[in-house]
């Protein structure tokens, strides 16, 4: 229910923003900055770069704002643009993923399903070891709360494929916790 209200609020903000309301843009920025930065971090593993990419993503969102059609959900549209920005960044720079302390990233609440696997630190650090495709679906579905249909629309895969990827990634994550007992948590931090 809360998710639905949040989504409706985003739709209203987006519609006002399309009509030229600067405050609506600020509202969108405040609502989406933290989860977007979290999501973009999965691509670059660097807090500063993720922050830069978040700004770039908002700039692209501004340029592409005419492509949003109310009352469609705002989040899949925003994440798809952000994903594109991240992939362009990786393509142009061919940068290696770097690990920085996850504590520097904005807070995104860990839902109960993920919380059962381990604490936030364990979850985020072990997630970094998963393949990119698995990380993305876990981040989008389990952490940021998007439906598999929405995840599929962002990634360009069928909802069933997104579900399978999430299931596999979650299974691998659980195995990592069991096998390693979280012993190497923090090993990838710099």
């Amino acid at each position, binding site marked *: 229910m809360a998710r639905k209200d949040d989504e409706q609020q985003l739709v209203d903000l987006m519609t006002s923003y399309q009509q030229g309301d600067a405050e609506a843009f600020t509202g969108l*920025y*405040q609502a989406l900055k933290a989860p977007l930065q979290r999501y973009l971090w999965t691509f670059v593993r660097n807090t500063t770069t993720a922050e830069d990419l978040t700004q770039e993503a908002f700039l692209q969102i501004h340029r592409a704002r005419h492509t949003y059609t109310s009352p469609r959900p705002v989040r899949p549209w925003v994440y798809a643009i952000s994903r*594109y920005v991240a992939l362009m960044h990786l393509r142009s720079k061919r940068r290696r993923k770097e690990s920085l302390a996850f504590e520097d990233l904005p807070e995104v609440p860990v839902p109960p399903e993920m919380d059962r696997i381990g604490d936030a630190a364990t979850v985020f650090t072990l997630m970094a070891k998963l393949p990119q495709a698995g990380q993305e679906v876990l981040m989008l579905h389990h952490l940021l709360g998007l439906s598999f249909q929405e995840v599929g629309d962002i990634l*360009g895969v069928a909802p069933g494929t997104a579900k399978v990827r999430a299931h596999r990634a979650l299974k691998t994550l659980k195995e990592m916790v069991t096998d390693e007992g979280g012993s190497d948590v923090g090993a990838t931090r710099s």
Partner: protein
Amino acid sequence: MSAPHVPEELMKAVMDDLQPITPLAPVWRRTLWALAVSALVFAVAVLGFGLRSDIQNIPTWLGWGSSVIEFLAAALLIGLALRESIPGRSIPLGSALTALVACITYQLTVGYVTWRFSSGVPWEDNPLAHGMGCMISDTTLAIPTLLVTVWLIIRAFPTRAWMAGMLGGAGAAIASDAITHLRCPVSDMRHVLLWHTGAVVLISAAGALIGLVWDRRRI
């Protein structure tokens, strides 16, 4: 936790260009714009250059009927391309390829059934000249639709421009083939497969390439 502050530079960029905008028209309406161009090309080609010499041997459902269905198939592909060009509405790659293969299969099936009804002008007469003529004709007839579709794609925000371009190219090629089906008198399957299906593949690849090149220059 306090609400994040919008960085000054970002806010300035937004404020510099914050006039009200009109959201993009729905996919179906933009598809109709592309199809309107196709229909115009169809009318000019058919009225200006006439129909194939053996049209009387081909039943109406197979001649005009299958051309109309091919047009609908083109509309589907162009619609998918325009949907793909909107962020967050990506088409699964499998679905896009299935649509593409289904349209090509339909084109080949129509070619085969037409061949069964009328062998038309013999392929052996001058295969290269016939073939090149058809390839050039298919490509030329597809260009207006391809240009409009690419323009519609670029006006949106394709996150996989190569795929949107490929689907748009395939749509333009299939629309062009709907015209050629009524104009080309060579029914031999070797001719259809090599030159007409070849043209569809070539124009689809050209669409993908246009998308790829445009994407590299964008950000």
